[in-house]
């Protein structure tokens, strides 16, 4: 039987606010335990929550970015359960009426083997504001469990999709797209190691063609795209094998173990809590007016899709290039800054996606901490454009710049060209003299060319470039050589 996997994601994004969602305590990561736990975070008797407006703005921003309905009135509810890292005994979340309603995200699923790359629209069901819990620290205190409430009350936006994805590749493409989007609109730092972006993945399988969904299991807290791929693939295989062996799937929450590469049930549905949701009487309903939306809209950056279209139109870039350059805001910003510094768009695109990105990948760095600044790259490409140096020489200059301090004089493009003697020979008289020598010295090749061997032409160019120690302008060499050979 042929099976189809059905996947939906719930993503917790930690919002980039200054303070907690319901108090003035800092949310900075990595502080000493409980140094960021104020009276509200500890849930002392008598304390009350006050909603952080910045968190609401983040939610509105996200709603606008995915073209979603933003609720004029949404409600905070209490999700009641006991856990040591949940100081109030309930989590303040949004249940029936979330701030962000239905929207959509378009993903690019990369080519894989014989399957070509494709685009797909993933529907967003809702996104709601809620507070994070604290952390249990096991082993930090001798013979006991410690509780760190620094994270308690950190603002989260939980983004829920429809069960629209049909493969691990689609799920990961969506997660990556969302990861990029929340950073693009600057509502989340995207740091997955620190837990700023965590995904729960709902997976079910059904016979291909069947309409009814299978029973789903939820893989909790995946904090890397690699683990997400492994977890979904394992879970899918496990579910199919279970069904093919005549078993049934029980709805459950599962954890992925990166060491074994397996998923394992944490708790089954029967043991699930009754959270006794009810509207939090300490908080008024959240009202978002048209004016609020307009105010946030005014602070929105150009979104990737709009920027891609603009790159194609303004710079004559291919759809592929434009998509690659708008894959992240840092890349787009780097590209734009380089073009604005006076370089031509097409070569900038080639260099950013080529040499720059290869270097960054090799060194596992992001463009944000590229050792070469946009202005430097622009200067380099201007020197290629005005024929001062060849493309090959430009690569040498690039290598030198990459390892020098970008603020030092040694990193200046012109200084490097001068120091390394890379300036290209464009005096046609000098080039003609070199070619003449080459033609004399390589009579055999000239004969071969005349006999119809096209390859001999390239060999002669190679000889000429070698004779010029690589400094001759290749275009001029080509032109003069062609003239001389056909004239004879």
């Amino acid at each position, binding site marked *: 039987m042929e099976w189809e996997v059905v996947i939906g994601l719930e993503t917790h994004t930690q919002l980039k606010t200054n303070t907690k969602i319901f108090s003035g305590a800092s949310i900075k990561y990595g502080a000493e335990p409980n140094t960021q736990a104020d009276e509200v975070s500890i849930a002392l008797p*008598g*304390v*009350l929550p*006050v909603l952080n407006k910045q968190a609401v703005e983040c939610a509105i921003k996200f709603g606008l970015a995915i073209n979603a309905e933003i609720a004029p009135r949404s409600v905070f509810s209490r999700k*009641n359960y006991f856990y040591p890292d949940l100081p109030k*005994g309930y989590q303040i979340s949004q249940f029936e009426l979330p701030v962000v309603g239905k929207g959509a995200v378009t993903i690019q699923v990369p080519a894989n083997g014989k399957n070509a790359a494709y685009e797909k629209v993933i529907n967003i069901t809702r996104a709601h504001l809620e507070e994070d819990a604290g952390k249990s620290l096991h082993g930090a205190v001798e013979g006991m469990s410690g509780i760190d409430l620094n994270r308690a009350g950190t603002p989260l936006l939980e983004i829920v999709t429809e069960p629209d994805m049909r493969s691990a590749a689609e799920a990961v493409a969506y997660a990556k797209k969302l990861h990029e989007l929340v950073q693009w609109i600057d509502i989340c730092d995207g740091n997955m190691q620190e837990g700023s972006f965590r995904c729960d993945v709902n997976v079910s399988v059904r016979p291909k063609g069947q309409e009814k969904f299978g029973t789903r299991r939820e893989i909790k807290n995946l904090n890397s795209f690699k683990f997400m791929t492994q977890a979904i693939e394992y879970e899918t295989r496990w579910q199919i094998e279970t069904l093919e062996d005549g078993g049934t799937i029980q709805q459950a929450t599962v954890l992925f173990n990166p060491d074994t590469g397996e998923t394992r049930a944490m708790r089954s549905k029967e043991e699930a809590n009754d959270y006794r949701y*009810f509207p939090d009487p300490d908080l*008024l309903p959240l009202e978002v007016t048209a004016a609020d939306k307009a105010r946030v809209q005014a602070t929105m950056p150009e979104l990737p899709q709009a920027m891609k279209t603009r790159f194609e139109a303004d710079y004559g870039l291919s759809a592929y290039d434009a998509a690659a350059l708008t894959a992240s805001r840092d890349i787009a910003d780097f590209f734009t800054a380089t073009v604005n510094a006076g370089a031509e768009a097409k070569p900038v695109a080639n260099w950013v996606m080529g040499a720059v990105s290869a270097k960054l990948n090799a060194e596992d760095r992001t463009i944000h901490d590229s050792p070469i600044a946009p202005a430097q790259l622009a200067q380099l490409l201007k020197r290629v454009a005005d024929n001062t140096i060849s493309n090959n020489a430009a690569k040498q200059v690039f290598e030198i710049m990459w390892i020098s301090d970008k603020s030092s004089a040694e990193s200046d493009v012109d200084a490097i060209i001068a120091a390394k003697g890379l300036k290209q020979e464009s005096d046609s008289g000098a080039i003609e003299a070199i070619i003449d020598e080459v033609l004399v010295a390589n009579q055999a090749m000239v004969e071969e060319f005349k006999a119809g061997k096209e390859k001999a032409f390239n060999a002669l160019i190679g000889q000429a470039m070698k004779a010029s120690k690589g400094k001759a302008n290749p275009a001029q060499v080509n032109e003069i050589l062609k003239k001389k050979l056909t004239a004879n």
Partner: protein
Amino acid sequence: MINSSLKKLSQMLASKEISSVELTQMFLNRIAQYNPVINAYIALDSDKTLAQASAADVRIANGTAEPLTGIPFAQKDIFCAKGWQTTCGSKMLADFIAPYDAHVITQFDTAGAVNLGKTNMDEFAMGSSNETSYFGGVKNPWDFDRVPGGSSGGSAAAVAARLCAAATGTDTGGSIRQPASLCGFTGLKPTYGLVSRYGMIAFASSLDQAGPMAKSAEDCALMMNVMTGFDERDSTSLNRPKEDYTRGLNNMQGEQPLKGLRIGLPKEYFADGLDANVAKVVQEAIAEYRKLGAETVNISLPNSQLSIPVYYVLAPAEASSNLSRYDGVRYGHRAAEYDDLMDMYMKSRAEGFGAEVKRRILIGTYVLSAGYYDAYYLKAQQIRRLIADDFTQAFKQCDVIMGPTAPSTAFKAGEKADDPVAMYLQDVYTIATNLAGLPGMSIPAGFSPSADGKSLPVGLQLMGNYFDEARMLDVAHAYQQVTDWHTRTPDLTAFEGNK
């Protein structure tokens, strides 16, 4: 001096007739004398109290005194006060020292008032007799066999026995007004949102409201000036201009100061269940109001009879969640021995909470459970709206509503302790205003004889429209200009032999 009004005390302090330290010491002496029997205070700290009094004397000397500077008040133990034991009447918080001040405490501190101590109360404000307190019951100063009412029973007894100049209370279903009625003084529950709940330990968040408990309407007005005001730390605090609640009091002079005032008399408040003697006192008070120029209008609050069932769904629902934080993890009572996390939760909460608190947590948990939420919680919210609508309709016909505060006078300790429903009926006339968020008040209106020959105070309840506290205080003040019920004090000599 113990019977002096706040205004009079303020004048005496200003004229240096007495210092705040002397005044405070006088109340501390009375507390030392009577509190061992009455049990009105849970926490006392004379060093802290006298330090505040000294600071007040400095303010008085350097001319920066405000109306309440130097006057000693009792604070209900539901308010967190920095450095003070703050128990909420529960074993759960018996050893809890609050590390911060409630808004109400800050307001009194800023005004230069002196904190005499923390008063006894029903555990987590759940009760109408003060008998659910972990720290023991409180004696009604009018008859020490009887309860002072609750939940603000300690504050009530302290005001009635003159163990403070005045006190604070909180009222979720009648906890200021019913004890005011049973102990014979003036208490006001303001419009919901007028006094910040920050630092006030939550029972039922959508109903809890703090207010003054004092010897007269005028004293309540002065306290309202200090207690009210916007606080951004409470999202339900109302951001409206500061009011002077004493502004109309001086107009309540002459023959018929209330001419034109329409008093609504809800028929449901004079029906079955009301003690005949209480009814008689209330009717006499209303007759007095007619003499003051007011006219009476018969009105109906048809859904008010649903107040108690609605309240006993909503208040426990909120309480069950509000009290989840008392889990023994971070502060409060933790069982000495336990097997695992679940065992720690269960033992700590089983030991830390009393029977009434457990009963309400169970009710609240039940009504919020999957499958019951719509039938109980949602339905109760819908009826709550109907109850509020009743008042909206009523206030088209009248300016203020009057009736009994409580169905009976103070009852004997133990009499209703094993019958929760009988106890809940104590609040039958007060709960509707909490559900509607409206202001309610109780003023002394006379006395009623008990079967054992005691004379016990009866309260008249005033209910006003939203933010109409100033008018209610005027209306109460007018009555207190022509009657002396509010000046009557219990004879405490009986306590002296009972120590």
